[in-house]
């Protein structure tokens, strides 16, 4: 049987969703029989492959770089999964959206710094004014809410994808789970 080419991507999130992937523990060995992990922060591949069957994306889209990565991945991926609340709703990264990026930068770099408070001129990503969920930019094929979704939820989802049952998938998860 041809193995499922799986990739994962980490945008503006805490990596908790990737930790949930690792929390599948010994079940990862079962999955390894039918999955090729072709790109992920968890594996040592530097460039995103040209064609991927399934990509799970963790995190909201917060910068031009995030958006660029997301659009590239969408083009090269057959089935795109918004993995976890940040990717699905914006969640915690989007809590800055109601006050604007200017106020966020001032609060973080100026108001709490006693000595020489200033916003660094280099080394900071250019942040969008709002952190937004994936589907604000591209078509998302499957949403897996949860903060983070449990290892059981991810295992059910991936197993269903391997067995071609993605269409009638009803996952036992919710916002904030």
């Amino acid at each position, binding site marked *: 049987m041809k193995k499922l080419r799986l990739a994962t991507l980490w945008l503006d999130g805490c990596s908790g969703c990737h930790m949930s992937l690792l929390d599948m523990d010994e079940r990862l060995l079962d999955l390894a029989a039918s999955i090729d992990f072709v790109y992920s922060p968890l594996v040592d591949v530097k460039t995103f492959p040209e064609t991927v069957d399934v990509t799970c994306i963790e995190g909201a889209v917060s910068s031009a770089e995030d958006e660029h990565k997301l659009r590239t991945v969408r083009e090269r991926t057959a089935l795109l999964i918004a993995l976890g609340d940040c990717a*699905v*709703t914006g969640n915690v990264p989007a809590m800055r959206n109601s006050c604007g990026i200017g106020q966020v930068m001032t609060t973080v770099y100026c108001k709490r710094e006693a000595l020489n408070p200033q916003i660094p001129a280099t080394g900071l990503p250019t942040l969008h004014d709002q952190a937004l969920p994936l589907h604000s930019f591209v078509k998302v094929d499957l949403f897996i809410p949860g903060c983070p979704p449990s290892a059981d939820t991810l295992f059910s989802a991936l197993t269903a994808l391997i067995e071609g049952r993605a269409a009638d998938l009803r996952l036992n998860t919710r916002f904030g789970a």
Partner: protein
Amino acid sequence: MTAQIITLTINGLQVSGLASETILQVARENNLPIPTLCFLEGLSTQGSCRLCMVEVAGSPKPQPACVTLIQEGMEISTHTEQLLHYRRKIIELLFSERNHVCAVCVSNGHCELQDLAREHGVDHIDFPYRYPAMTVDASHSRFVLDHNRCILCTRCVRVCGEIEGAHTWDVKNRGIRSLIVADFDTPWGSSTTCTGCGKCVHVCPTGALSEKGKSVAEMLKKRPSLPYLVANRTLEH
């Protein structure tokens, strides 16, 4: 005087009720669930959340079950595809209107809005989020009002006016600018009418009203501790 008995069908099932009963009451008596949010048994009915909309044969538009009285020969459907679609969109609109960040909410895991989303398969919000800048009123010594989580169901307004008799809460402004306010829009802590009873906190379906000091997912609403509400009498038995 004998009460008039009315017969009707709900989802094809023959049921009967008193002329003074609503579609929602008769449905629940017959174990036919209709989702609600602003409705709370024991309080006056508001009909504002629109989740309990049902289809009545012959009526061109859906009717709110909580405020519509039954009539002889009514044919009611509670779960058509169209109604389920409307309900999902209503839930999505509620999520998109203010800042509902379940993961860091005091009511995570004990929230009626969150539960409704899950029950209706709402796994993302199609509408663009509004991200309004909302305030949090923590001026009261024991309670907190977080406007970010408020869905304007007005259960707090009704329980305070109708059960506690204090009428501390009310709604200011209209439409999307509506806001729950204490007295004449004073900080909750300086309200002269609030008795500190906490009924509003425990009827609130979301994390908008909570007890001070509760952290993420810690705010359990104690409905059975409100015995004056009919709902709680039925819960206990």
